[in-house]
């Protein structure tokens, strides 16, 4: 049961995700997120961090992996949460996302 549940969960999640992509909602949400992040200065903070990393590693030898490894955790960390709160990301974007999810789920419900 638990496995099936988990399966179901996974399935549901997958289905919803797919639905989002299909209708293009995911892209729209992504753009919205980007705009919000720039607005609250998250991008500038990340850029400053990038500069430090690059100066450390040397301009010539920076790789994508380095950057990703360094920046992603920072990007999801405290500053991000602050930014989130500042520009009301959770309020706007997340609620929007939630609505979408609910909508798709309700559509899918009868097919359970």
């Amino acid at each position: 049961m638990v496995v099936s549940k988990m399966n179901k969960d996974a399935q549901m999640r997958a289905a919803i995700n797919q639905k989002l992509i299909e209708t293009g909602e995911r892209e729209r949400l992504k753009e919205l997120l980007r705009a919000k992040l720039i607005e609250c200065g998250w991008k500038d903070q990340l850029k400053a961090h990038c500069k430090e990393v690059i100066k450390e590693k040397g301009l010539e030898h920076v790789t994508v992996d380095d950057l990703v490894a360094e920046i992603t955790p920072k990007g999801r960390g405290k500053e991000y949460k602050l930014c989130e709160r500042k520009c009301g990301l959770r309020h706007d974007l997340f609620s929007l996302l939630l609505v979408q999810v609910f909508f798709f789920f309700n559509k899918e419900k009868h097919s359970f």
Partner: protein
Amino acid sequence: MPPLSSGQRGGEGRWQPSEVPWTHTNIPPTCVQPCCRPLCYEQSEHRLHKSSQMKMEEMSLSGLDNSKLEAIAQEIYADLVEDSCLGFCFEVHRAVKCGYFFLDDTDPESMKDFEIVDQPGLDIFGQVFNQWKSKECVCPNCSRSIAASRFAPHLEKCLGMGRNSSRIANRRIANSNNMNKSESDQEDNDDINDNDWSYGSEKKAKKRKSDKLWYLPFQNPNSPRRSKSLKHKNGELSNSDPFKYNNSTGISYETLGPEELRSLLTTQCGVISEHTKKMCTRSLRCPQHTDEQRRAVRIYFLGPSAVLPEVESSLDNDSFDMTDSQALISRLQWDGSSDLSPSDSGSSKTSENQGWGLGTNSSESRKTKKKKSHLSLVGTASGLGSNKKKKPKPPAPPTPSIYDDIN
């Protein structure tokens, strides 16, 4: 970032490509087919049971659905953020490799130069407010300290290079010349050449001032128009204003003593103008007055036995049979009226009177010339220009209309 197709999920292992996506087109195994009804009864029961179970599961799930959904939403959201991060990393990496990542930086020295200033009394650039109000500049020409806002006009005047400065200078010169003339008259009474008496010069100066003030409300004193009109009006004024020119050419005989009178009369024309009651200061041969007039004046002042400066063998000698007063009156009244009937039938006089009465004609007689120059004030355009040139200071004669009123 390019949109990911449904089958892929780069590196995150959300679902495997082999997994069949669950769409609504999938028919769950619990659907009942009509053909195998008896057989399916058990199956349907089984299915029902199962479905009810499922429903029950769902019911139990439904309470958690919201939280689940929220969890799902959370996960999707986290995905989005991570995608953004990745995208940002790619951009930075590209910028680094293409070499434009550090382009928008400035060196720290410049940064310090242009730092925002936050002190009281200064703006963010570090400038003082109101700095130029109290600032004083030193003029390189006259070495005076001038307020900054007045510096440009002062320099214009100081160097004499602006538009107005030449005009102002010209006016000043004209003024000073006139003033000098009038002032020197006060000093030199014996000077034959100057036509002004002390009394007259003051009057003239005052008159000129008042005339200038009168013009001021209508025009800017420094504009070119002003100077033109001034010239024109000065010319007109000089011609039209009888008082002015009689000032310049006449002497008031009231202030003179007998000795002075005699001396004057021996050297000057001395004919008294009717309008200003002043004596003509021109020479004995002054063309504006006749010998008759001169004689009359001398007789008037010095008595019948006065020594006349010139002995005339004119026909007018007969006219002196009349009494002095009558003669004098008749002579004094030659200025004006056309209805004069001089008892002395001096042909020259009558002709002059007539010429006078017909002052509007363009003739060459002096009287008409006088009238002409006066007419210019009224605005009639006669052949005055030529007359003006010949006699720069013609005494202003009255027009017939004006003098009809007077007489």
